[in-house]
């Protein structure tokens, strides 16, 4: 999944870093000079899951500008509502097409509308 996402956003011109889980992602972010525009976050990860990561990222003023998108197989309405309440901006449910991902990023203003056409 990380490879697929890396390819999709890479083709859109993003420079991509990835991390094993939420804890590793926070460590990676702490060491970065510039905060990324976008974080694509799975729900199910060891050590720190996606919901905990989103909650932690929202509490960090330094990460305020980073857009958070959950990308996960968790498709229950209650999961989506919890992620949004924690501060996620969008939610992409697996399976998805690359067009779907691009359209979601367009909704968030991260890529121009119609980038896939």
């Amino acid at each position, binding site marked *: 999944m990380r490879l697929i996402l890396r390819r999709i956003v890479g083709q859109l011109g993003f420079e991509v870093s990835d991390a094993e889980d939420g804890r590793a992602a926070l460590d990676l972010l702490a060491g970065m000079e510039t905060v990324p525009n976008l974080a694509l976050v799975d729900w199910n990860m060891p050590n720190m899951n996606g919901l905990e990561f989103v909650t932690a990222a929202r509490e960090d003023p330094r990460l305020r500008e980073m857009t958070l998108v959950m990308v996960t197989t968790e498709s229950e309405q209650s999961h989506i509502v919890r992620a949004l309440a924690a501060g996620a901006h969008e939610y992409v449910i697996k399976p998805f097409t690359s067009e779907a991902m691009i*359209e979601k990023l367009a*909704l968030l203003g991260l890529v121009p509308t119609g980038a896939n056409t």
Partner: protein
Amino acid sequence: MTLSASDFAFVAGLVRRESAIVLTPGKEYLVEARLLPVARQAGAASVAEFLAGLQRRPDPAANRAIVDALTTNETSWFRDREPFTALTDAVLPELVTSRSSNRSLRIWSAACSSGQEPYSLAMSLQQALPAGWRYHITGTDISTEMIKRASAGEFSQVEVNRGLPVQQLVHHFTRSGTGWKVTPALRENITFQQMNLTAPLPSMAPFDVIFLRNVLIYFDVETKRSVLRNVSRLLRPDGWLFLGAAETTIGVDESFERVAIGRTSAYRPRVQVPAGALGKG
């Protein structure tokens, strides 16, 4: 394996007669890909075998299935965004003023496919219309299969990912099996009906807004003209017509004028000037 020229001509002729959609050579791959599930359903091993049988023994149900398979497109929610933004930012405020006496709007989503457009329109209207206003949306499509799907209002996980903001998903849909179903509150006020835009249209009350998007591109200029003429009879004189981004009335039907709205444009019937008034102003 690709379709023989005669099989392609047979399918193109059928689709042309039934829907006025022109399949130009070069679309053999598309025809093959779309017809394979239809052929399998009919018990044939290949598209070629399916078409050979059909040419020996005509079957209206199989013809219908072919037209359905070739005239439907994958579609996303709030497709192209801008027309929906134009609707809520410019068109609705004007209509809310001009229709303030009856507080009711009629919208037509012509060629609505599996229903994403009429449901997106309903979401926009519910969000943008002031309290006390009513709306009715008519969704039509040439494909009976698509009308059945649109009417059921059930969408797969893959479909709800496409262009639908997740806040709208949790607000207007509930889980249904592995997919999602529109809520009764979104489904009400929408009527679905099968309709061929190139045939004489049934009588309907006129509409305030018509979405006729990504339809004209399939037609030759004569058919475009007749579709626009048909549709314009059902548009109120101060109504709005939205076409696809690659479509225009310009050079096809001069009874419309183009109005730029933000990054898109819509079309409105030109004010009819009585002949005697020409040249005086």
